[in-house]
C-alpha cells in the first residue's frame, strides 16, 4: 500500500468518527451536563410549581477543579444555599442546616453525568430554537417511553450548552414544574471567599447535636426489592432517627437519571394505625403500604403508578 493510500484511509477513518459524533443527538445532553458543572456563571432564574413560585440568584464557579455554588432566594424569607460540591449548607433565618447530597442537581445542574440510562427510557427530539434570557437556546424534548415517568423539555444554550430552561410535563402535556433563567452572564472570575462570606462553617460543630435531620449512611438491608420500573436504580440509602423516638427509619432513593423516587421504610409504634393508598400533593404522588410492622411510603414527582409500583416492590 502506498503512502498516499494509507493517508487516505486514515482520513476516511477520522472523518467517519467525526461524523458519527456529530450525528449522535444525545451528545448535546452530555455536553450540557458537563457545562453545568464546569462553567462560571451568575444570573437569576424563576421556578414555578403547581403551588408556588420564586426567584433565585445564583453564582456558580469552578475554581481549581472544585465546584462552588451559592443560591440566594429573592422571594419570601431570606435564605441561602451554599455548596462546595460535597456538602450543602442551608442558611435560613440565622440557622445553619447541613445537608448531604450525593448528587448536586439543583437547577441548572439537572442532567446526569452518564446519559446512557436516559437513552433506554426516553425518546430524544430536537425542537425549535428560542431566545431565553437574551441567549439563543436549542429545545431538547425527552419523552418517556413508558408510563412510569414524566417528560422533560430542556432549552440548552446554543454556544456553551448550559441548560437555561426546564419544563416537566405529565402524560397529558400539563406542566408539573418549570425553571427558567431571566438573566445570566458568563465567564466572570470569582473568588472562593464570596461563597463562604455569609456562612460561618465553624458553627457546624455546635449545631450538629441539635440537628434533627442528622443522617447516617447505612449498609445493612433487611429487605428485598421485587421488580422495579425500568431504568430506576438505587442511588442512595439514608437512615435517620425518627423525631421523638429513638428508632431509625430508612430512605432509599431511586433514579432513572431525571426522575427521582424515595422509598421510606418506617417502623410503626404501638397505637399508630397503618395507612394504605395513593394521594397527590401538588406535583408529588405518595403511595403507602403496610407490611410486617413497617409503614412503607414511596414519594416522587412521577406518575401515581410509579410510586405504587415502588411501595409494592418491597418485601421482608
Amino acid at each position, binding site marked *: 500500500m502506498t503512502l498516499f493510500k494509507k493517508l487516505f484511509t486514515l482520513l476516511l477513518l477520522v472523518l467517519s468518527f467525526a461524523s458519527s459524533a456529530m450525528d449522535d443527538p444525545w451528545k448535546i445532553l452530555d455536553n450540557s451536563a458537563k457545562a453545568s458543572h464546569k462553567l462560571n456563571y451568575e444570573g437569576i432564574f424563576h421556578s414555578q410549581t403547581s403551588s408556588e413560585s420564586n426567584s433565585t440568584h445564583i453564582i456558580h464557579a469552578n475554581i481549581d477543579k472544585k465546584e462552588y455554588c451559592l443560591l440566594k432566594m429573592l422571594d419570601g424569607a431570606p435564605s441561602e444555599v451554599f455548596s462546595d460540591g460535597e456538602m450543602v449548607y*442551608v442558611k435560613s433565618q440565622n440557622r445553619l442546616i447541613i445537608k448531604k447530597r450525593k448528587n448536586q442537581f439543583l437547577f441548572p445542574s439537572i442532567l446526569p453525568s452518564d446519559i446512557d440510562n436516559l437513552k433506554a427510557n426516553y425518546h430524544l427530539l430536537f425542537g425549535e430554537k428560542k431566545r431565553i434570557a437574551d441567549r439563543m437556546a436549542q429545545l431538547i424534548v425527552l419523552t418517556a417511553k413508558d408510563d412510569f415517568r414524566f417528560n422533560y423539555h430542556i432549552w440548552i444554550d446554543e454556544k456553551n450548552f448550559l441548560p437555561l430552561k426546564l419544563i416537566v410535563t405529565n402524560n397529558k402535556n400539563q406542566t408539573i414544574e418549570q425553571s427558567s433563567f431571566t438573566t445570566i452572564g458568563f465567564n466572570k472570575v470569582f473568588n472562593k471567599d464570596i461563597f463562604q462570606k455569609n456562612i460561618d462553617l465553624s458553627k457546624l460543630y455546635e449545631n450538629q447535636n441539635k440537628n434533627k*435531620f442528622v443522617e447516617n*449512611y447505612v449498609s445493612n438491608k433487611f429487605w428485598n426489592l421485587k421488580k422495579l420500573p425500568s431504568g430506576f436504580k438505587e442511588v442512595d440509602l439514608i437512615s435517620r432517627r425518627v423525631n421523638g423516638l*429513638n428508632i431509625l427509619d430508612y430512605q432509599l432513593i431511586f433514579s432513572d437519571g431525571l426522575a427521582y423516587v424515595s422509598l421510606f421504610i418506617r417502623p410503626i*409504634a404501638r397505637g399508630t394505625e397503618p395507612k394504605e393508598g395513593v394521594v397527590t400533593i401538588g406535583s408529588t404522588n405518595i403511595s403507602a403500604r403496610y407490611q410486617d410492622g413497617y409503614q412503607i411510603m414511596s414519594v*416522587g414527582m412521577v406518575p401515581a403508578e410509579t410510586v405504587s409500583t415502588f411501595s409494592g416492590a418491597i418485601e421482608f
Partner: protein
Amino acid sequence: MNEKISSLFDSEINNKEVDTLLSKKNKMAGVRSSMSDYQIISDVMKKNTVLPKNNLTDKIMSAIDKEPTQMGGLTKVNSSNTATISFDMWPVLASLAVLVVIASTAFNIEVNSTSQSQLLAKEDIPQEIISAHHAATANNMNHFVQVGDSAQ
C-alpha cells in the same frame, strides 16, 4: 466502678474485689443504685425475673437523650470529643448492648402483620417525609430551603 459491678454479675470478679464492692455498696448510694440496675440486667439475661419497666426505662431514655448525635464525616478524628475504647470496657459494652435491647422493647415496636390498615389521606403524610424526599432529590431550591425551616 460500673465495670466491677458488671463483672460481679457476670461472675468475673475475685473474692477480694467482691468484699471491697459489697463494702462500698453499704456506704455509697450511687453504688447501691448501680448494683440494682445491673442485678436487673443480669436477671433479664438469665430470664429470672420480670423487668420493672418504668424505672429502668426512664433511666435508659435519659441516658440515650444525653448521648451526642454525631454526623458521619464531620466529627474530627482525634478531637477531644472522640471516644476511644479499650478491651477493659467490654463488660460495660456488653451491659450497654442489653440496655439497647431493653430500650427497643420499651418502645413496643409493633410487628403484628394482622393490623387493620386505614385508607391514606393527605393529613396522614408526615411533613418530614416530603421534606426528606425534596432534600435529597429536588432540583427546585425552594423545596430545599423548606427542609431547613421544618427542622426548627
